[in-house]
């Protein structure tokens, strides 16, 4: 049994384990399933309102999709550095894993800064959360995503601070697996939001 990880499995002999999985990974997937319901429910109502009430009209056309595209690129690059951190942890290079993890978190901060400029621009033009139903959905869904991103950034910076040359490689690899799984989920949610809230309304 790995250090602090609980494995359950069905074994036919003491030395033979047919199937096994980490409880931590299973817990993360259960959590992500709940998060999928949260974002999925909101997106579902957004699409139904769109279909049954003739689109989002002029409100949807005002969304700043070029900034959204830049933010998508930033998140893709952040996920790349997170994947590279996992790769470094697998070969027991904790210093490199720490650098890549910090880069992923910093790119997350860059996403938030760009998003803040975008919110400020929208607000300045009068597109407040109460301006129209589209903007209520826009602020609710993107704001919820920002909160999730913020949580991921805090955990990644916290993990990066905890890593030192004496950090056990298996411990780091496992923690990175969980936080990266969450980070990729947050990226996937953004991809769907970018298509639904930015590109599709801008396309007409």
């Amino acid at each position, binding site marked *: 049994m790995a250090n602090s990880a609980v494995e359950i499995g069905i074994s036919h002999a003491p030395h033979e384990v047919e*199937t096994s*999985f980490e409880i931590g*990974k*299973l817990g993360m*997937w*259960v959590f*992500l*399933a*709940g998060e*999928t*319901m949260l974002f*999925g*429910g909101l*997106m*579902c*109502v957004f*699409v*139904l*309102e769109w279909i*049954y*009430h003739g689109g989002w009209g002029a409100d949807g056309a005002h969304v700043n*999709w070029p900034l959204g*595209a830049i933010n*998508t*690129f930033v998140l*893709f*690059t952040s*996920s*790349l550095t997170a*994947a*590279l951190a*996992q*790769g470094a942890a*697998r070969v027991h290079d904790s210093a490199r894993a720490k650098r890549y993890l910090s880069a992923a978190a910093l790119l997350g901060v860059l996403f938030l800064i760009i998003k803040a400029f975008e919110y400020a621009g929208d607000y300045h033009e009068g597109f407040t959360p109460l301006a129209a139903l589209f903007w209520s959905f826009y602020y609710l869904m993107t704001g919820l995503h920002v909160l999730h991103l913020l949580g991921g950034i805090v955990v990644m910076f916290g993990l990066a601070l905890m890593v030192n040359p004496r950090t056990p490689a298996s411990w780091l690899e496992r923690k990175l697996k969980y936080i*990266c*799984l969450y980070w*990729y*989920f947050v*990226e*996937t949610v953004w*991809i*769907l939001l*970018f*298509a*639904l809230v930015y*590109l*599709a309304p*801008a*396309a*007409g």
Partner: protein
Amino acid sequence: MEQTDFSASDSLKTWGLLVVLLLIGVLTVALGLPRSLALWVIFCVAAAQAYVIGRYYMRLRSEDVLIYTLALLPVVTVIVLAFVLSPDVAMHR
């Protein structure tokens, strides 16, 4: 059994693929394609990006049936929710 041979070069290839798909989606809007065609391309691109992340970054290609169930169950539930809510939203206003 989880696959662990996902190298740095694989990560870069995955990132490159995601960026190319992003450019396709953005060009669809920038070029002003007809609305129905643009929407079709945008949602296909988003689905492809989600698939790439799930398969290569989240390692779903090497997960067992329990994880697949956990990943797909909420998606199926949301689709069911869409059908259940549909008449209510249609008569809302």
